[in-house]
């Protein structure tokens, strides 16, 4: 039962990562990210209930606090302050990105079939799902032009890594997990400050206009 639930939440996270590719508004992207993080926290909570590891409860709570409340709050603030066009511009249009995401997911399942996952694992199918989320996150960072959607791509990718971490290994040790949360949080804050600086120097947050430094 729990295996089913954990896999279900993992699959929903992958689905939301794909949905992320189809969103063309920054506000919507942040909301999708928020929902994905809710699923992730619930999934961690379920794993915690099964394995009765106290650390996972804390991890789930921290995940909820940072990724559902703090980071989206900060990102909404940034979007509000920038006020520029909220449309997301991309190098590859939505239809093609969605088609490409199919290839990504097939690839993720293909390489995880090659590795035998042995030992005690709560949900085996989580591994390809999380690989899919990671690759879609990277793809988002590369195919989007707006600085903010690149940040969301990074966060999506990080969610995928956390999903793999908790379901394969029942979570990393507590100190490491807190450190990772801290780094991601500070990284997003600093990237947000950089978005403001890009806005003031280039008068847009379109990173394709940042093209002075090349050979």
């Amino acid at each position: 039962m729990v295996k089913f639930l954990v896999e279900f939440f993992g699959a929903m996270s992958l689905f939301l990562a794909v949905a992320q590719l189809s969103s063309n508004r920054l506000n919507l992207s942040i909301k999708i990210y928020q929902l994905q993080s809710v699923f992730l926290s619930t999934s961690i909570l379920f794993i915690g209930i099964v394995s009765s590891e106290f650390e996972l409860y804390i991890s789930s709570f921290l995940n909820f606090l940072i990724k559902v409340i703090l980071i989206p709050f900060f990102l909404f603030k940034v979007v509000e302050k920038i006020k520029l066009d909220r449309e997301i511009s991309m190098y590859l249009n939505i239809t093609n990105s969605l088609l490409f995401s199919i290839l990504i997911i097939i690839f993720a399942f293909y390489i995880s079939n090659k590795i035998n996952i042995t030992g005690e694992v709560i949900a085996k199918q989580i591994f390809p799902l999380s690989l899919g989320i990671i690759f879609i996150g990277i793809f988002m960072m590369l195919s989007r032009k707006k600085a903010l959607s690149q940040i969301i791509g990074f966060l999506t990718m990080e969610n995928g890594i956390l999903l793999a971490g908790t379901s394969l290994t029942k979570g990393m040790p507590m100190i490491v997990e807190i450190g990772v949360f801290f780094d991601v949080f500070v990284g997003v804050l600093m990237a947000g400050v950089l978005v403001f600086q890009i806005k003031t120097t280039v008068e847009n947050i379109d990173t394709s206009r940042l093209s002075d430094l090349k050979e």
Partner: protein
Amino acid sequence: MGVIIGLQLIWAVVSYFLNLRFVYFVQIGITFINLILGYSLISKINNPQDRIFELNNLLFLDSLNSIVFLIILIISFFVSIYSIAYVKRELKAGIPERNFKDYYFWMNAFIFTMLVVVLSNNFGILWIAIEGTTLATAFLVNFYRNKEAVEAGWKYIMLCSIGIALALFGIILFYYSSFSVLGHGLQSLNWTNIYDVSSKLNSKLLMLAFIFVLVGFGTKVGFAPLHFWLPDAHSQAPTPISALMSGVLLNCAFYSILRVQAIINNNGYGYDTSKYLMFFGVLTVVISALFIIRQVDYKRLLAYSSMEHMAIIAFAFSVNTKLSIFAGVYHLINHAIVKTSIFMTVGSILTSFHTRDIFSIRGLFKALPYTSVALILSVFAITGTPPFSIFMSKLFILISSFKAGFIIPSIILMLALVLIFGGFIYHFLNMLMGDTDKRYKEDLLILLPPFVLLFISLVLSFYIPEKILILINNIPEILGVKNG
């Protein structure tokens, strides 16, 4: 070790609240104290099996990381001396004093995170610290707040974050393979624990983890297809920071890859890791050679040269014989010293001419005579001309790779090195020769560190201190060298 790290962290915070004039000198004092403390720790290590533990096994020191540890301490000491003159010049050029308080804060935070990277025994904490180096330097890269600097900062934080996130996935796979043997908890991420049970781990999973870690930390080292942030970041950062990033940070990232490789070599799975390292090494040398030839910005040129040297080091470790690993570590030390010296001399030119364009600078010999001497010597040193020590280490690397039978990669490497030599000489002679009516003032403080470093490099080619030699000779056994 805890004392050194703690001192550095406290000083990073305190320096933010002190008067800048006071910070200049205390900074030198702190880095010097750390250097002494660090050396006294290192002198306790004699055998490959010697490990010093601290803080509940979270920090440790053995022969491999004591070399990188020593490099961090030495280079940050010299950079602290150099920073005084550099900051004074930039203050004169009209940059507000407040920015330099940020500068000192972030620089000390940067040194702190690098110390944690090398001393940490735990892969999780190592990852956190490497991400920390990215965060600590992001605001130093866009220090000048102009369009190029902001662009470089953005690329830096985004590309490195992707890379490091991939490395985190690799580390999770590592943890997954080790916790079935070592049990759940912090101890199954400790390098020493994993190393001791490495033969019991699942080899395929380890290999997958290694690939993720190599690509991830390889982004930070600047391996070829992942290097796009590197020339931007190294050319836009203030020059003392460029020196720290090129000479030390790249080594720290490479050191993390070596730690993972050591486990896989001891796993008995074979030496497949070497193939990947060699691929990245040769590719990076070739690509950096091509970019060095057609470069118009001298700081970018030096950034590409850092990529080249890291790739040569990776090549040396991929050959994986006793001689080649000796040469690789030797080259790592030499590169850190000489690259810092050349960045420092170039910084003196940049603060006088205020341009990074190679072709708009002419007649350096007349404008800055002493700096020019340092520059020409550093150029010869970095391209591997005798009598400087980089010549010796490059020679050892090539001899060892020919001996081990890697004929074609070695020939490609040699051709690329010739191209790089030509590119360096062409570009820098262009700047040095010619006529000019400009004449700038030269400071003693800005010239002293590069000359001292060059002298160290000269000495190192004839004489390596006994202590360092012992440490270097211990490293092949730790890394699990093939044989002979």
